[in-house]
């Protein structure tokens, strides 16, 4: 499984978690990641607005480019999980679901975590890395 990177955005479009797992995407400065998250938050809102059919089924879900494929999952509370994978990676849905579970278990159930703030939970990162094993 080749997952390149995972970003988590809070409901206001602020970046609360970013981690690279494999080579493939360029390293950006933390400020650039914040800008990127904010931009994506806006774009996500617009994509549901420009839907040509009446019931816009939410915003952007999958983005494809030559080098990667990004899956965006928005929870009911507005938190967004962005998972960057290789273009032909199958079953990203499963990964997204599992990451959400880990988030629920190790971030939301952490009594010291302040909601909407950057995630600094060691257990979350440890379990995330264990699940998404970096390519050997």
């Amino acid at each position: 499984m080749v997952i390149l990177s995972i970003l988590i955005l809070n409901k206001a479009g602020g970046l609360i978690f970013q981690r690279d797992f494999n080579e493939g995407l360029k390293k950006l400065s933390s400020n650039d990641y914040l800008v990127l998250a904010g931009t994506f938050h806006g774009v996500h809102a617009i994509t549901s607005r420009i839907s040509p059919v009446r019931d816009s089924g939410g915003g952007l879900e999958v983005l494809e480019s030559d080098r990667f494929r990004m899956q965006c999952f928005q929870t009911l509370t507005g938190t967004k999980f962005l998972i960057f994978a290789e273009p032909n990676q199958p079953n990203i849905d499963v990964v997204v679901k599992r990451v959400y579970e880990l988030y629920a278990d190790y971030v939301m159930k952490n009594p010291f975590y302040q909601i909407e703030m950057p995630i600094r939970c060691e257990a979350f990162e440890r379990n995330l890395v264990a699940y998404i094993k970096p390519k050997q």
Partner: protein
Amino acid sequence: MTIYSFYIFDRHCECIYVKQWHQRDRSFRPTSSASTVDSPVTLSSDQRSSTSSKLQNDVHPTGRGGRLSVQDDAKLVFGVVFSLRNMVRKLSGPDDSFISYRTGSYKLHYYETATNLKFVLLTDVKMNNLKVVLHQIYVNLYVEFVTKNPLSPIEHPGGEGVAVELFEMGLDSFIVNLRPHPPLRRIQTNLVLNREQYRIDIKVS
């Protein structure tokens, strides 16, 4: 397999051509609510300049429920495409290119030429990658009928010289031909079934 709309943006970030096939309901515009599935709505340059100011005033101020005019839609599409393209380039280098994105209800395909012309096609979610198709539209229709047209200006401010008859006809027939042929799989399964029955018959006898 539905194709909703097609946009061309020039290198000055201006929408120079719009065509919509399956219109969503725009109740405030009598022209488009009257238009059925098979009558596409196109904005040529002269139409647009005369109607755009009126349309912009007609946009519903209500948030999610309000529908936008064709022009405002085009601006939003451009904004999305431009931001995503920059995002992709920032993340994985300047030679990577944004191909498409999908939401729950539609899919947007994108192709950019070396001269920064941007071709955008909105289809339903089941459509495969249409980058090749957009490239074909550029090479076989845009270059042939718009760029090579001696009467057409070099730049196309306000869509001038793009909505020519040949280009529109070509585009229409091209899009119609994109619709898939009837599937062959059902016939094949029938054949297999028949063969099995035949085999069973032989065994019995």
